[in-house]
């Protein structure tokens, strides 16, 4: 996030798009609800009638994958009505004139047609956004990025921030809400094929020298390959060995059959995890790791805040912390490290990572979490980025981006659009929430959310077993009839892989720049299941704990 979570409560306008915030980031949604209570306007741009729309001034229900024409049209209105921040554009940005020409074709009428909304919804959103600037915050999540045009989607939002000067000020910004507890930290630490720790580019002249000197070892020159490319290379036989730490790739990645096939193709697979996950079952060697409650170190959250993680108990059996395991592997590979503890590792990391320079375990213990960039011990950290200058050191470039429809759109054979995401009480692949007692009462199994009118046309009742098939795979799931889904769009999460492995169905398309998979759109067909009802229900029952379970539809707090 460019800005801080707490700042959202003080924004005058919130644009939330591609984020089911009350379910995926419940505690961030509290700040949004607070802003609304304080009088802020909230506009939710989302194909589904998500829970947050209850607090929204306006819910703009665009079609899946039409973000760019929508936001380009918003920019069109802002420019043509002279609502942009000329001062900010002059001193902080480049490329405005070309961009202004580019969005001329995206009139509200033109985009409204593509997005399935009215021109007024676009015009009003533009005026409200500009009127509240610079205290207009944009928040988005994977509904924006998990598209084959995901990076362009993000740029179309960035353009709005540049137009109205909402960057580098409190209560504004363009804020991606990060999905996992330490996805920020994994990036900060340099677990990126192109970046060394602190987002320092491997291929940028001079950078590698610094690390070679600090680490005393020559470093590989060429950038590495992403997960998506790696899986293709595995199938082609070019990748021989894979080391996976704490990730259930087989269930979490799109087109799961492909991921499974890829990992089965390699000569040697090591998986380090706390459970024998679906991915670990494919491994040649499984290394038992400590869980968060047994580990010492830090997580970095969505607002770049580094916070201390402390061990409350010891790992079970012979399980070891990830840090211990890695340090012994270094030694066996003939590269022994002088670091012994998590604190030692952090100290080495901060010595080569300028944005972490002023942060230490001791300081975190003393002061609580600190937001990077934090250059030295006297630096209190950074609540919002891009204050006087963009952190890249360059001006903000307007990005003239164009509409690119999802790679796969409904057709005669696969007439439905499937989109995927999370629910509040299940998380990711369910390896953790699946083990919490009581949660089977909240969401007992996977459900396909479908609009009541669509269900009526197909003669479906709540709970009917359905087969959902795409060009890549098929799953069985029960129907959940709800107005959250607009007509023609169905929704599933992926938290119940034992029975419904949603990602068998999802698309294998991905963003051409970041290689982020298109989880948010794929074409499917739906039919009543050929499964024996009893057989399937018995399987469902197997994963529940004993005791009476009510109908899921009666037990869905917050639904409808």
């Amino acid at each position: 996030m460019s800005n801080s979570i707490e700042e959202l409560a003080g924004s005058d306008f919130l644009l939330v798009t591609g984020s089911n915030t009350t379910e995926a980031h419940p505690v961030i949604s509290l700040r949004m609800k607070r802003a609304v209570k304080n009088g802020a306007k909230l506009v939710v741009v989302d194909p589904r009638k998500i829970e947050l729309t209850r607090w929204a001034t306006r819910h703009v229900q665009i079609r899946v994958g039409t973000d760019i024409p929508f936001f380009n049209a918003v920019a069109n209105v802002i420019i043509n009505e002279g609502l942009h921040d000329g001062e900010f554009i002059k001193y902080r940005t480049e490329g405005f004139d070309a961009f202004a020409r580019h969005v001329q074709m995206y009139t509200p009428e033109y985009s409204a047609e593509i997005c399935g909304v009215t021109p007024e919804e676009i015009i009003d959103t533009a005026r409200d956004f500009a009127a509240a600037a610079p205290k207009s915050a944009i928040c988005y999540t994977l509904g924006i990025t998990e598209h084959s045009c995901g990076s362009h989607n993000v740029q179309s939002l960035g353009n709005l921030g540049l137009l109205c000067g909402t960057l580098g000020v409190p209560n504004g910004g363009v804020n991606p809400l990060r999905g996992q507890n330490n996805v920020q930290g994994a990036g900060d630490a340099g677990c990126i094929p192109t970046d060394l720790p602190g987002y320092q580019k491997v291929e940028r002249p001079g950078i590698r020298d610094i690390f070679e000197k600090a680490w005393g070892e020559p470093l590989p020159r060429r950038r590495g390959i992403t997960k998506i490319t790696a899986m293709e290379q595995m199938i082609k036989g070019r990748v021989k060995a894979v080391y996976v730490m704490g990730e259930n790739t087989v269930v979490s990645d799109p087109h799961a059959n492909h991921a499974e096939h890829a990992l089965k193709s390699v000569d040697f697979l090591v998986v380090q995890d706390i459970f024998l996950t679906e991915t670990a079952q494919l491994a040649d060697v499984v290394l038992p790791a400590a869980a968060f409650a047994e580990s010492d170190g830090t997580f970095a959250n969505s607002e770049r805040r580094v916070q201390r993680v402390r061990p409350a108990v010891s790992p079970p059996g012979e399980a070891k912390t990830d840090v211990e395991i890695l340090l012994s592997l270094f030694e066996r590979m003939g590269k022994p490290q002088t670091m012994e503890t998590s604190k030692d590792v952090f100290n080495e990391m901060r010595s080569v990572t300028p944005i972490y320079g002023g942060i230490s375990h001791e300081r975190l213990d003393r002061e609580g979490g600190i937001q990077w960039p934090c250059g030295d011990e006297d630096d209190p950290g950074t609540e919002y980025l891009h204050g006087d200058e963009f952190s890249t050191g360059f001006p903000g470039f307007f990005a003239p981006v164009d509409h690119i429809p999802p790679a796969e759109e409904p057709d005669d054979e696969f007439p439905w659009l499937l989109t995927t995401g999370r629910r509040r009480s299940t998380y990711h692949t369910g390896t953790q929430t699946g083990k919490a007692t009581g949660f089977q009462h909240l969401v007992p199994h996977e459900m396909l959310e479908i609009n009541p009118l669509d269900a009526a046309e197909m003669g479906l009742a709540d709970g009917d077993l359905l087969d959902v098939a795409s060009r890549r795979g098929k799953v069985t799931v029960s129907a959940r009839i709800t107005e959250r889904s607009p007509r023609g769009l169905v929704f599933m999460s992926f938290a119940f892989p034992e029975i419904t492995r949603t990602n068998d169905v999802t698309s294998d398309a991905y963003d051409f720049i970041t290689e982020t998979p298109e989880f948010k759109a794929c074409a499917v067909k739906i039919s009543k299941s050929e499964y024996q009802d009893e057989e399937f229900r018995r399987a469902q029952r197997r994963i529940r704990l004993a005791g009476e379970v009510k109908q899921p539809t009666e037990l869905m707090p917050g639904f409808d």
Partner: protein
Amino acid sequence: MTTVATNPRPQTKTKWLDMRINGVTVQAAEGSRVLDAVNDAGFEVPTLCYDERVGAQGTCRMCLVEVEVNGRTEQVASCTAFAEDDMSVATPTEEITDYRKTLLEMLLSEMASMNANPYSNKVGPTEFDRAVEEYEARQDAFPQLRVREKASHDTNPFIQRDYDYCIACYRCTNICNDWEQAGAITVDGRGQDSSIFTFFDNELMDSPCTFCGQCINTCPTGALTDRKVVSQDIVAQNVDHTQTVCPYCGVGCGIELLTHDGEIIGAEPDFSAPSRGSLCVKGQFASWEFVRSEERLRHPLIKQSDGTFRQASWDEALDLVTSKFKGAIATEGPDSIVCWASARVVTEANYLMQKFARVAIGTNNIDNCSRT
């Protein structure tokens, strides 16, 4: 390389008020509450109904202080009274201490269970328990006037409602309606007959409750408790708290893990963290059971030729890993190996993972699941 603003908050002109608190001269910003001014000056004022997230309610009267302004002396609830220029505050005076004690004794007279169980049924002494102890409030000071209704039978697996302990401070309903804005619970009735109520007296499962657990954590008495924790019947005094971070989404809410005898028994929010004591259903009710699951991996495993795993020693497993890595490097080059880090583990482990790929193996083939 980075030039960024270091916290330049917009400067608004603050008017400062001169006050005397227990004889100490302090300055308080205009518009601040007497309670905050007293706390900032380093004196403690007890509260029962106050939660900073929803602000002053003025219902419990525990925070009463004596103020003198413009020659008038009066007792005011410090949470609702505003600081004024030239105000003197005294707390606690003998009279106020007596008043607070009487107030606690009246509340105690409504709690039937207090006689059976001196500590209410929360893990750790509650705010109320601590106040009772500090003011030496007696349980039998007043004849029992009435006993609040026991909780309506509620079978949900998360929140135990036991209104025996309710003191009608309304923190739970304020948090639910004003902060979480779920609207699951409300107040029914007035005065002594008031009670906490779900609409149509339904069970919480059939209400809009999101099971965020914030009512439990703001409750000062133990009328609302975490059923998973209290059902373990662990004596309050033997519980350790460890401050850490929730293992779910990227909000990074502060949590405290509760442990007893080397085992995790529950979680509570860390009120000192930037998340300000908020959690969701996952952080409150799903952040610890998986850690002590029977299904945890306890030993390294090596796959046998028939496809099944056998238990192995660390030496054997790590030797096998390194020999395979060395073999791949020798025959196919370092780029034939791929390492995937994790968005779930600590940053330190991720740092080592990328260094391992780059230094020990010699490849930039390091990625994490930020794309998926």
